[in-house]
């Protein structure tokens, strides 16, 4: 793996074993580029949290190495530039939301001036005086995001930030993540939800049982786009398309044909079918969903 200066995170053969039998993360090579919202996708138990903990220096890799914002994991100069929420938000229950952020600011060596702006950003300002122990799950998650924000970090590591939120909270959190990802800030977002990653991320890595299954742009991983055709008579349509594109490019069931060709060819195909006396009732591009990609790559539904 080459690691260039613009990789905010890069790992080489990163591995974590627990005991002799559990390999939580297995020789992972990740590259997260500056400014992108990077999705780290995998089912529960895939090793996402373990990986993020290693990136933050909370746990030591069994083997392999990682660079995060140009530093070794856990180095103070690196930590100062990272905002993170790993697994679940953890703050002092007897302190108010605002006091908790002051504690974080003290640790990070920051002035207390940015705290109310961060609370406002996550819409917690009205509850800033209440004890953290009285917060709902959604409020706790948002306080964690605010704690990351006050550091004005160049990298945000968010581990399943929508876990445990109600549908309304999920929508708000995703909106917030998209907003966080604007500008030069890099966001590393782990999730076990395909649609979440699809909605929010530029690039994605997919892991399963600790191993990297795929890494790339979301649209690349969705795979080559295909064309969906509905035409009658369908047998005639099929035969003429197979003549035109080759047998392998045409698949279909029940009168709906799926063509593995670029959607750009839709006008040609339409013209050819019409001139052969075939009536086209539907012709549209269909992208593979990440769900299908995931299924084909991992052989398992998320």
């Amino acid at each position: 793996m080459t690691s260039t200066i613009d990789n905010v995170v890069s790992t080489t053969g990163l591995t974590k074993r627990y005991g002799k039998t559990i390999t939580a993360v297995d020789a992972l090579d990740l590259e997260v580029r500056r400014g992108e919202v990077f999705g780290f996708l995998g089912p529960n138990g895939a090793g996402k949290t373990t990986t993020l903990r290693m990136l933050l220096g909370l746990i030591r890799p069994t083997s392999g190495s990682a660079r995060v914002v140009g530093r070794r994991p856990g180095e103070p100069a690196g930590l100062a530039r990272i905002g993170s929420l790993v697994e679940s938000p953890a703050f002092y229950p007897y302190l108010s939301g605002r006091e908790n952020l002051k504690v974080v600011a003290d640790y990070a060596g920051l002035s207390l001036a940015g705290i109310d702006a961060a609370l406002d950003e996550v819409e917690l300002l009205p509850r800033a005086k209440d004890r953290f122990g009285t917060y709902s799950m959604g409020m706790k998650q948002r306080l964690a995001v605010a704690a990351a924000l006050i550091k004005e970090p160049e990298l945000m590591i968010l581990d399943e930030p929508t876990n445990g939120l109600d549908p309304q909270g999920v929508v708000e959190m995703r909106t917030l993540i998209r907003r966080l990802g604007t500008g030069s800030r890099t966001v590393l977002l782990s999730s076990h939800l395909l649609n979440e990653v699809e909605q929010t991320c530029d690039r994605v890595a997919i892991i399963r049982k600790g191993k990297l299954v795929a890494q790339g742009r979301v649209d690349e991983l969705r795979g080559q786009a295909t064309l969906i055709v509905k035409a009658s008579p369908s047998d005639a349509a099929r035969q003429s398309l197979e003549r035109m594109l080759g047998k392998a490019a045409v698949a279909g069931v029940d009168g709906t044909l799926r063509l593995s060709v670029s959607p750009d060819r839709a006008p040609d195909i339409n013209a050819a079918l019409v001139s052969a006396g075939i009536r086209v009732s539907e012709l549209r591009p269909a992208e593979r969903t990440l769900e299908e990609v995931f299924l084909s790559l991992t052989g398992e539904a998320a």
Partner: protein
Amino acid sequence: MINAFKAEWRKLRQRPAVWILGGILLVALVLFGYAFQWIQVTFPAKNFHNELGLTPAQLKVALYPVNFVKNSLVGVGILGGALSLILGALAVGSEFGWGTVKTVYTQRPSRIQALAGQLGVIALITASYSVAFFAVAALCSWIIATIDGQAATWPAAIDILKAAGASWLIFGCWSLLGMAFGYLFRQSAMAIGIGLAYLFVIEGILFRVLNGFDASWVSTVEKFFAGQNASALLGSFGRVFPSPGAAPPLVSAGEAVIVLAIYTAVFAAASALVVRARDVT
């Protein structure tokens, strides 16, 4: 380190448990060190009897300002030690219970810097326990002297300072044992349980039983134990009414200070080792 100190101080100074523990120490001092004794000697029972053959009026002198250091030191050893141990165990153990260790370790300070800040704040809090302890003892003795219409004469300032310093060392030593146990067990309940069991059972009961055997190896072994050195250090200040035939302190005050300082350093180092080595999940 200064960042970690500021953060830790912000956390602990707002934590009720920290001041409740200090409050228990002060309330115990007021009640057992002064109030009950004053009632006993002011309104003596008909069959009043003192082991040393002293009268209530003679005993009352212990409660006056001139004796406030000696009279109150008794409470420093076991009670102050136990409360300080709980303080250290809570300061560390709760961070694991709340999962806030990871929040602390992902901000900026290294683990050792975070620990150093924490040690600094615990030192500050135990110092404030010690200062408050003698301030309250002085106040109680002054109130009693005033009630009795006695002029207040005070111990030498240097003796007060020495006593406050010795108490701080003892509180600090036990609080650092509590911290080390907190890091080792990653929770407060077990740290407090094992810490108090050690303090009361090993340092308290076991050595009292062993002392009954009057064997020379007992005192040789005792010299290596923190609690026995703490007792010796406190004993060096003397009693208001020394009981004849009581054993002299195990070691000199100077030696006790050195042993306790070594223990304090060892407990801090033990925390540092555990903190560096462990995965935080």
